[in-house]
């Protein structure tokens, strides 16, 4: 398990945005930069379930699918991403649940 996880941490770059988006009701709402879909910028048409590096960056420690309110992925690509992650789980490339 250890090798998988080490790689993942470096690829996971959403933490800062997560903190900024959270903490409701504490002080005035800070202005947030509008997040834009990374896949739209890269012009991705299909997300492959074998692209482990990519999928791992959207499945944080617990192995859950990162919601798009945090990652900023557009609905079309979030759907593709979810499908790919579920396929990868089916053949044990990704965990269903990590402890």
């Amino acid at each position: 398990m250890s090798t998988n996880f080490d790689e993942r941490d470096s690829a996971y770059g959403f933490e800062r945005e997560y903190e900024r988006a959270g903490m409701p009701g504490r002080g005035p709402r800070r202005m947030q930069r509008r997040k834009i879909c990374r896949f739209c910028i890269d012009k991705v048409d299909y997300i492959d379930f074998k692209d482990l590096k990519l999928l791992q960056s959207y499945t944080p420690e617990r192995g859950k699918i990162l919601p798009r309110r945090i990652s900023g992925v557009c609905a079309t690509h979030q759907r593709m991403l979810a499908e790919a992650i579920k396929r990868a789980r089916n053949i044990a490339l990704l965990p269903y649940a990590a402890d």
Partner: protein
Amino acid sequence: MAEKRTYEVVFIIDPDAEDAEVMRLTESVQKIITDQGGSITKTEMMGKRQLAYEINHRRNGIYVLLEVEGSGAEIAELERRMRVNDRILRYMTIRVDEDRRRAEKLKARRARKAEKRPTAGKKRTEESDTEAEEAESEAA
């Protein structure tokens, strides 16, 4: 059923299997497909890798990926055989021709849009872009 379909078949072989056995299994899988009238366009041995969770008390597995073209009948036969083979820990078949067609369509649409507006604004248009795409893909 008449049209040709493309599938990706991934299966995981028991990690205790020798190289020769892996080869033999892969060949037998290929033979099942060709016997049923399908054709193999790609074979990729992804090698031994760690499983994300245990399957039949195994922590590792040997992954093999095939790309198959055919009617769908050979997939049915192949899955039936793989189900009873206990050296194959897991298999998954996904139909990729539809997804690929969809990707082509998205690409074509993007090209068309780029032509229509050669030097439009930045963020705002990008957003409305994706929203329009969503609506269209849902309608399709």
